[in-house]
């Protein structure tokens, strides 16, 4: 296992390298440069030139890339060309917010999806099943910026409620944080729930047809034992897989939800970076997101071994 993890981590290097090249290339293909964006339509050419020079953008691209990469190898993500702030602390700070939001959203999503998915599978083809399935499909069919806006509107208009405006962490003030993250988490949770529900249902249906489930019934077990003692764990690999994908994606920051609810998460950070052409920010941010994504996948693979003794690395 240990060597497996090491091998996976080593395998990460080319992926991250590929991503860094890709990000760098795309970013520099995008028209616009940070200096003129910063100065806007008031700019004078010399002001732009001066700013570019102070941002180090007057150097050849390859030099810029290599010096960035050089820093990266040493664990230095560089500084924002706009504010001159170090990037890594910002990333970590925002990641912690995104992480909390994601976990909360996942919690909401799963606590809706898994019971309903199981229920739907057990009562397959019943009215409950049909309603649950359609609800799940609706959940993935509505754009989430519409859902988010609607939530905000309804709550503020009819209930005069608005989440606390300062984003606090769960470990600082759980009650407050709960309120802060509630709406965005619900907005994200709906999409998560829809995906997980569908997967839970189909995985469960598949498992419930397996021979060993018949064996479990034949032993005289109650439905409770069959479902939770035998079927659940056996269905969990695809569920964990999709959940892992979702978490991986969301940890990259749900750009739209963060934008909608002014959550200063990682997605926003990178998005702003793109808008501002803050190259090091985008490069560092995306790389970090990719790293997290891949690590989450690794974690999922390790969870597999814990779920299923047949899986060995």
């Amino acid at each position, binding site marked *: 296992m240990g060597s497996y993890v090491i091998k996976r981590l080593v395998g990460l290097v080319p992926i991250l390298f590929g991503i860094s090249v890709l990000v760098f290339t795309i970013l520099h293909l995008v028209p616009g440069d940070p200096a003129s964006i910063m100065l806007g339509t008031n700019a004078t050419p010399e002001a732009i030139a001066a700013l570019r020079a102070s941002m180090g953008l007057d150097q050849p691209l390859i030099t810029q890339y290599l010096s960035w990469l050089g820093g990266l190898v040493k664990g230095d993500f560089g500084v924002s060309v706009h504010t001159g702030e170090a990037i890594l602390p910002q990333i970590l700070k925002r990641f912690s917010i995104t992480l909390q939001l994601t976990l909360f959203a996942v919690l909401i999503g799963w606590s809706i999806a898994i019971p309903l998915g199981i229920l739907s599978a057990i009562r397959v083809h019943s009215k409950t099943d049909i309603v649950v399935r359609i609800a799940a499909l609706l959940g993935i069919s509505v754009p989430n910026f519409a859902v988010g806006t609607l939530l905000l509107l309804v709550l503020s208009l009819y209930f005069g409620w608005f989440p606390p405006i300062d984003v606090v962490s769960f470990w600082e003030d759980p009650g407050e944080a709960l309120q802060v993250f509630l709406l965005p988490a619900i907005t994200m949770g709906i999409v998560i729930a829809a995906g997980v529900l569908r997967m839970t249902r189909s995985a469960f249906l598949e498992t419930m047809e*397996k*021979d*060993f489930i*018949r*064996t*479990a*019934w*034949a*032993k*005289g*077990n*109650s439905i409770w*034992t069959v479902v939770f003692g*035998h079927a659940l*764990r*056996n269905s969990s690999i695809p569920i964990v897989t999709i959940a892992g994908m979702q978490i991986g994606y969301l940890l990259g920051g749900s750009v739209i939800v963060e934008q909608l609810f002014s959550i200063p998460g990682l997605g926003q950070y990178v998005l702003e970076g793109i808008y501002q052409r803050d190259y090091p920010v985008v490069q560092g941010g995306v790389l970090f997101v990719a790293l997290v994504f891949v690590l989450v996948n690794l974690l999922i693979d390790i969870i597999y071994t814990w*779920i*299923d*003794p*047949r899986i060995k690395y």
Partner: protein
Amino acid sequence: MPPILEVEHLRTTFAQSGRTLTVVEDVSFSVEAGETLGIVGESGCGKSVTSLSIMRLLGKNAKLDGSVRFAGTDVLRLSEKEMQSIRGNRIAMIFQEPMTALNPLHPIGRQIAEPLRRHLGLSRREGAMRAVHLLKEVGIPRAEEIAAEYPHQLSGGMRQRVMIAMAMACQPQLLIADEPTTALDVTIQAQILELMKKLRREHGTAILLITHDLGVVAEMCHRVVVMYAGQIVEEADVRRLFADPRHPYTIGLLASMPSISGGQERLQAIPGAVPQLHEMPAGCRFAPRCPKAMAICREQVPELFPVSATQKCRCWLYREGGEA
């Protein structure tokens, strides 16, 4: 002494995409305590469905008619809860595929202990100890170690032994074995058949043995029921059946088997194929393939006519109760 299991006019239908499929039609048989009854028939003739009907393990789309009396009570009339207390306790079952019939994620010992804990209320530790004991009884070496292992770490034969240990855990009165050796190699099959014989001897368990291998039937069973397309076509004492098969299907079946002792230049194949469930012929279901089919065979369903005290046959040839 009344039979331990009496199945009467069992009819199992499935509701499927708007149609009703009758898979098992008017099946009646009984199993005495300590007796082994074989059910033989070709793939898809309803052997498994019959056994699952007895256990009431078919899905919601199945409908059961007739009666299945186990030790005097009709299990078809029991509540699900009552049924649960019978399954794995007084009637146990083993299946064809030992690989897939075991939960891949639970250790062997735990799976064997499960019925014990459920039905006999054993503690986790007692269950574990009993499990090891049972593993030894079915001839598994290093039982303590194996109890902690997972199904995928065992060979096919070992897994089937585990299945048997699990089924025998609560000392059931009836064991339903649905093709317990089909997936195994002959040498392993021989081991498993020996084991079943030994357990039968020691515990006096009645066995309902489902198979399509007439060799296994000859070796294991006291009486045999031959099924064709969801119906029982012949029922007989095992010696009678092999010595004097009556139904044209049984006769054809025996003739179409190549023999290990050689001697046939050409096999007597039964022409045609088993009819599909949704296009069952009217009259006798075997009629389209039957060399002796008569006009009546294509129109009316024959009853299970008694041929002798120990033999019944669903064929118009035996309508008068005697030889035709």
